[in-house]
């Protein structure tokens, strides 16, 4: 196979430029000395320092992290449960409908999800704040978790659970002692995915956030409307870093698990 050709190289460069040029510019300008975003005046990390002094941004960051942790944890629990039932349960009426419905929010416009959430919270008289954002984020993130976990459960040998039951486990013990440890890599990558999704979200958060709680994306968005400052660039760079780390570690965890298994199997084959 030919590895390098001018066509391949051009296609690759064009594609990645298209994808990453805006972000690269943002990251570069976050280290700009000048207050003017578009004028390069030398390297500096002063905007990162300034960011640490900005009370409003720090509060928003704290809210965002709290929301991300709570909602991704809740989404992981609910999403794993949903995946487990949909993959494991015997055929019941409307099972196909249910499994289709769990994927629907993935393609639902976020504006609609946000709006319906807002209407619900107003309807039941829930004050908008951290709690409402957590609930809203849980709702859409659990779909992603359940997709990740159910794809693992499909290939899970059911006789392992039966063996656990056979050896005296209650169904819950069988899940806790056998199923969960084996599907743990999928559950963890589901959690990381939910975490980064919650960190990123602007649309749903802006519908469900109240004056008492603002997340970082909302803060950035409203700040940008008053003009882009290097501070925003610095903040965005940090967020890009966190999300990148999250996504990469999610894929590494699942990859490592399969690699480890492969290595062990080869070792076993050698004797």
């Amino acid at each position, binding site marked *: 196979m030919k590895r390098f050709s001018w066509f391949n190289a051009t296609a690759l460069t064009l594609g990645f430029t298209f994808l990453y040029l805006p972000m690269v510019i943002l990251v570069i300008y976050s280290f700009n000395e000048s207050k003017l975003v578009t004028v390069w005046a030398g390297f500096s990390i002063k905007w990162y320092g300034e960011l640490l002094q900005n009370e409003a941004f720090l509060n928003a960051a704290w809210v965002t992290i709290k929301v991300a942790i709570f909602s991704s944890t809740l989404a992981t629990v609910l999403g794993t449960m949903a995946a487990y039932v949909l993959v494991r349960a015997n055929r019941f009426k409307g099972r196909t409908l249910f499994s289709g419905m769990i994927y629907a929010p993935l393609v639902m416009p976020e504006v609609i999800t946000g709006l319906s959430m807002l209407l619900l919270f107003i309807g039941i008289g829930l004050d908008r704040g951290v709690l409402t954002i957590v609930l809203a984020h849980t709702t859409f993130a659990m779909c992603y978790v359940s997709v990740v976990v159910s794809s693992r459960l499909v290939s899970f040998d059911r006789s392992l659970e039966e063996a656990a*039951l*056979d*050896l*005296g486990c209650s169904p819950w013990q069988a899940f806790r002692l056998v199923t969960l440890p084996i599907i743990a890599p999928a559950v963890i990558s589901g959690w990381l995915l939910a975490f980064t999704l919650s960190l990123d979200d602007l649309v749903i958060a802006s519908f469900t956030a109240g004056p008492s709680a603002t997340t970082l994306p909302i803060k950035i968005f409203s700040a940008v409307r008053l003009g882009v400052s290097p501070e925003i660039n610095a903040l965005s760079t940090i967020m890009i870093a966190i999300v990148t780390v999250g996504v990469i570690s999610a894929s590494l965890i699942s990859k490592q698990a399969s690699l480890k298994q492969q290595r062990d199997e080869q070792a076993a084959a050698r004797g």
Partner: protein
Amino acid sequence: MAQETVFEPWNDHNESPLIQFKNVTKRFGDFIAIDDLTQDIYAKEFFALLGPSGCGKTTMMRMLGGFETPTSGTIKIAGQDMNNVPPNKRAVNMMFQSYALFPHLSIYENIAFGLRRADMAKGAIDARVTEMLKLTRLEKFAQRKPHQISGGQRQRVALARSLAKAPKLLLLDEPLGALDKKLRQDTQFELMDIQEKTGTTFVIVTHDQEEAMTVASRVAVMDEGRIIQVATPDAIYEAPNSTYVADFIGDVNLIKGQGELRTSNAPVQEVEPEQTTEIIIDDTPRPQPNKFGEWIHDKRLSPIIGERIEPIKQLPPPSAQELSTAPASASTPEGGIALNWSTEHPAIIVSNGDEAQDGKTLTFAIRPEKLNISRTKPDAPNALQGTVIDIAYLGNVSTYHVELTGGQMVKAQMANSRRLARRDITWEDNVWVSFTDTAGVLLER
């Protein structure tokens, strides 16, 4: 052979069965997996469920394990109705076809898994696991993970894990399916050995008839959710109750014909078959006279004490083996059934045929190894003429495909007891296929 050591609880009316299936039916939607099945299985049995895939054998086993519940009927284990007892509350353990070893636990922890659920003291668990590791010769692998050991070792871990809780009943679902032939044979004997040592009742599901015959005390041949025949391996092989069983177990020649009560027009012979076996030879050493003693007796003592009686010179009675291999004499015992099956051949004489089979359409089943093949007409109750079509040399035996006059194909199997033996019979040869009057069985269905 001492009679009292024969293990046959199914013939003992005082014995109560460990497992009772009573009119059990299991449906999956429209599909009937088990059809009104009634069967007893006794303690310490090694019971094999044998049948093609889809015959319901696995369903039967999964119902014993508690993974399926019968649609109707009851299953009792040790007298207790098990219909509403979940798998984790049964004194039954199962060895899964895929072994189902927990990949995240070491071999030691896999075996200890069931014991830890049973609130056992730590020391007791350790002792039991060590015992199991020893039984299955896995001591060296205790700390390894399941994917770090070979297939045969995994199979032994699965066995050790299912035996660790000392279940009343162990279920084995195609336990040796994943092993290669040589390892499978070794493991079969290992299984029998362990079954004997632990005294556990084993129920094994298999589609491999050789495996079932090797390990089981009784074999149940299943088809379409029913048990067709339950018997010891030799009875299943030598006395199948239907052509299905005869055909499923091993190789068989089937000849269809019309049964007819044998008339006693054959010359009645005074046969005393029991006589030979009743002669009791006193072979304790006794002093015999030497040459000088004989001379003294004959010349001097005989007028006084009478003629010397020579000890009876007699061959020992034929051993059981000799009896079975002795060529049947022309004097075929009367009675039984003659099977008219072809206009070109004499009727097949089946002296063990039931008189009630007179006039019925019957199938004569005979195993290939019970057919003898020769170039000249042998002195046997049944001899049929034909042509050798094909010879399959299998090393230990050769199988001859013989087309009898009229077109019926039969297979005859001859042991290659001598190297390059039986070269005298070859393709296209005209041969006689012969067999004794008791070598086969007549089947009505």
